[in-house]
């Protein structure tokens, strides 16, 4: 189902499926109420994610959670926040970025070709905005590898850089 971008031994990079992405801003003190609206607990630990009923919430900054879930559930989730009695901002950004899934033993090394972060510091579920080469990306460590997403206009650059890094990793 997903398009393959590259393989390197048992490591591969492929297109992430289309998903709904809703960017939720709200006051940290309203986290419980926001969680109730989302239908699952939103993390109070920065750069960590939680999950529930098919959705994930990535806690990216003190007042910011990125809700990622099935495309079909987008309207329902947005509706829950529409008439909420608390102050918040919910914006549909499902079309803003595209994702690439990196799996396999060399996934970390693929990212290390452009990402200055110490990836070992992100445990499963961990997420952060960072750089891949010259582009801002969102990194999310999932059970089966990394999801890297970036604004869609940068896609050609990101794919080219991934391929260049893969060529270097393949070089003895």
């Amino acid at each position: 189902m997903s398009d393959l971008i590259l393989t390197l031994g048992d490591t591969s990079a492929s297109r992430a499926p289309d998903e709904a992405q809703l960017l939720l801003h709200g006051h940290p003190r309203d986290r419980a109420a926001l969680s109730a609206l989302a239908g699952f607990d939103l993390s109070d630990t920065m750069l960590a994610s939680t999950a529930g009923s098919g959705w994930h919430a990535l806690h990216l900054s003190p007042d910011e959670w990125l809700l990622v879930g099935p495309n079909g559930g987008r309207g329902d989730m947005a509706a829950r926040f529409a008439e909420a009695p608390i102050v918040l901002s919910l914006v549909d950004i499902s079309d803003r970025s595209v994702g690439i899934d990196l799996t396999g033993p060399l996934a970390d090394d693929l990212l290390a070709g452009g990402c200055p972060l110490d990836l070992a510091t992100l445990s499963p579920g961990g997420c952060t905005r960072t750089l891949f080469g010259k582009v801002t990306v969102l990194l999310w460590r999932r059970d089966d590898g990394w999801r890297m997403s970036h604004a869609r206009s940068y896609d050609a650059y990101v794919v080219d850089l991934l391929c260049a890094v893969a060529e270097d990793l393949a070089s003895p």
Partner: protein
Amino acid sequence: MSVFRTAGGDAIDRSRTISFSFDGTRIEGHPGDTIASALLANGVHLMGRSFKYHRPRGVLGAGTEEPNALVGVTRGPGRFEPNQRATLVPITDGMVVESQNRSPSLARDIGAVNDLLSAFIPAGFYYKTFMWPRSFWAKVYEPVIRRAAGLGRPPEVTDPDRYAQRWAHCETLVVGAGPAGLAAALAAADAGGRVILCDEGETIGGRLRDMPRATIDGLTAGKWIVQARTRLENAGVRLLTRTTAYHYGIGNLVTLAQRCTDAGGARTRERQWMVRAGRVIIAIGSIERPIVFPNNDRPGVMLASAAAGFLHRYGVLVGRHIVIATQHDSAYRTAIDLAGAGAAVTLVDRRARPAADLGEACSAAGVTVITGHIPIDTRGRLRVSKVAIAPAPDAAHRWLPCDALLMAGGWTPSVHLHSQSGGKVAWDAQSAAFLPGTTLAAQVSAGTCRGRVTLADCLADGWTAGGGNGASAPAADDRTDTGMSPAEPDAHPEGARRKAFVDFQNDVTAKDIRLAVREGFRSVEHLKRYTTNGMATDQGRTSNINALAIAAQAMGQTIPGTGLTTFRAPYSPTTFGTMTGFTRGRLFDPVRTTPMHARAVAAGAVFEDVGQWKRARFFPRPGEDMHAATARECISVREAVGLFDASTLGKIEVVGPDAAAFLDLLYAGRLSTLAVGRCRYALMLREDGFIADDGVIARLATDRFHVTTTSGGAASVLNVMEDFRQTEWPDLRVWLTSTTEQWAVAGVTGPRARNVLAALVEGVDLSSDAFPHMAVRQGRIAGVPVRIFRVSFTGETGYEINVPARHALPVWDAVAAAVAAAGGGLYGTEAAHVLRAEKGYIIVGQETDGTATPDDVGLGKMVAATKPDFVGKRSLMRAAMRDPDRKQLVALLTADRSLLDEGTQVVDPASPRQSLGHVSSTYPSVTLGRPFALAMVHGGRSLLGTKLAVATAAGPVAVDVVDPVLYDPSGARLDV
């Protein structure tokens, strides 16, 4: 093969012979040889000509310190590199090596006349001699000097090889895999955590490789190195050989240059590692110093450590009759080793009474020792043939014949990386050297680079630095280990007339340094720059301390009282390829494309760069140039309908109960009065009152605004907004979300725009009453939910259809088909610019230059001056900002109907030497039937109806000053 090969050498593979050419001569060697070792094995010592005097030179060192033997290396088309150190470049079969800085040949070089003329080219000669006439500097003096005194020729074609970069993180980075570094890495690996060990050599071991008779933990040095490698690999230590740590940055970010392969091709040639280390252990050793005495630079004269390296690593004897001049102990080991390999060795020690056991060891090995003597001169044109020794420079001398003369002037600890880390160096009297002092970085030096002398001390020091318990350190047994014992730097005595070289690469002599001191230079930094000592690519590895000693002596000061120059990165010459890494070609900078990019390509668009974006500039048909295509596109918009990709416009969704209050503070206009479903053009000012950005703001709901920005300003406007939101007005309940890339935007504009939309849009009443100009509606096109903004940047009725980006293409295709059916077509940014200029609409950054107020560009009415506050309000109240003589936006029409150039000056014909303003935009206009220009002119609005002139290369051109709205001043066409 050669008489200079011995049975030893741990680096070379004797089973194979390969060959390369050196200045056209075929030279044989073994895999593992460097250019220098292969040449020396064949008895070739002459490898280059010196920088300034063109004196014949051979190698001085055997490694990174080499100042003389710089060569150009070619490994096939595009693979030419100048200025390579012959001591570092491994030979490959068929490679072509050329010497440098000589003409016509290395042995017969006409530039050598400089050596005879040297009285006329002393230190700083180029500052003195070539001052007049001034005009001669750039055209005559500098090119001639550059040709005569230079390095190799630059490469001329694109480098075909691949270069890479990689980030790495570790708890411990050990730089240098000599005895101290290996011990440190072993201890750190035992302690746990990620360890990276790098060394610039072809293999690990460092100076330990030159101590084959030493034993560690009961193993010979060679076997211990092998065992250490196995232990490190088993412990998961990342071991990087051929890798130089060349930059020590803040936060323990150390940059390494790894030479992956010399061959290039499909493999990565060089890789830059950016290592973020918890702590750094610097174990980069020390470098031997030459002895400063007359004619100490002939081929065959080299450091004792170099001869040891060539012997032990490559199995090469640098001569058959070797004299070693020393002033300390470590040369004794080398003397014994060389004698053991079959050379006749005479050791000349400056000291009257060196330690007795050293002399006994020498006698046993057949080495002749002469004490209380120093070298004072040499002979030999292209290779040293004899050396004069004497008890003192002016005492009676005798000549010793030789084919190699080794210098052991003492050891200089390498404090480069320590210094780069922000660490201070401190003079240590006992070591007679500058050693690492205090530092704020999480780093520590270990081994000889911090003054440790014996092998046992170095192993223990590294082990402790790596976190090991001192008692369990590797134990060295080395009966001939005399250590790198301290030796005072050599201040060559005054008075010698012949050249005694201090800096070999830049041809600086002891006399030059004394001259500089006599001429008043006292600071070491000034001395360095005036004499150029230490300024060559070797960064004074072999020369800094000797130069310092001479300067200190000349000034009657101590060495620490004179001071040391600063060390800067890179530690070692590093290729642009390494530093560039992936960042070339398509990866030089991201090229951003819109979701409809492929459609523009298919339509034959010519693109222009707008920041990182590619935007379609015009769509030429066969035979059309830009002007013809743009004129056709303009007519299409004015008379029918045009379709424009406006996706690059910045978009920010501002949401929250205080969104309106926030925008009222941020923008000059009033947004709180905007009705839901309506749009307003707004200006964002900087705090200085000048225009920063503009855009249309739509109110989607009471608490939700869709803000647009210029394409180039999208990121900076969002940053400014976040800055104010978080720091100035944190009480406001509002959040910002960038939606630039969420929405693809198809702009449809022209008298038939409404008809085009009517055929496409579901769920929106397009009548002007229901959907007036400057309004926003939500509907569907091709089943996709869209936001439609009725706005115009052309002066015609216009709609900007915002489509969720992943559905952009079907909607775009549907709209394009409808536009074509209505007799219209695509238009590009060039037509868009013409159309907006005909209406007098500004472009931020074109009409504005960071010093334009809203009133300057005729937009004073966009400022809601009655608002209590907004960014820039107080600045706008300053008298100078209300001066009627400020530059104001006008249009200019040339009397001769010529097209003006952008940026040309507007003048009063009566006094044409004073500028009244400048042309900001200029276009031919098919709509107006003539070219026109927009201009910013002092007091421009008061000059409407008058005649001015524009200065052109052909002379002043008369212009009429007119109102900037040249097309449809009533605005009737906005609602057709």
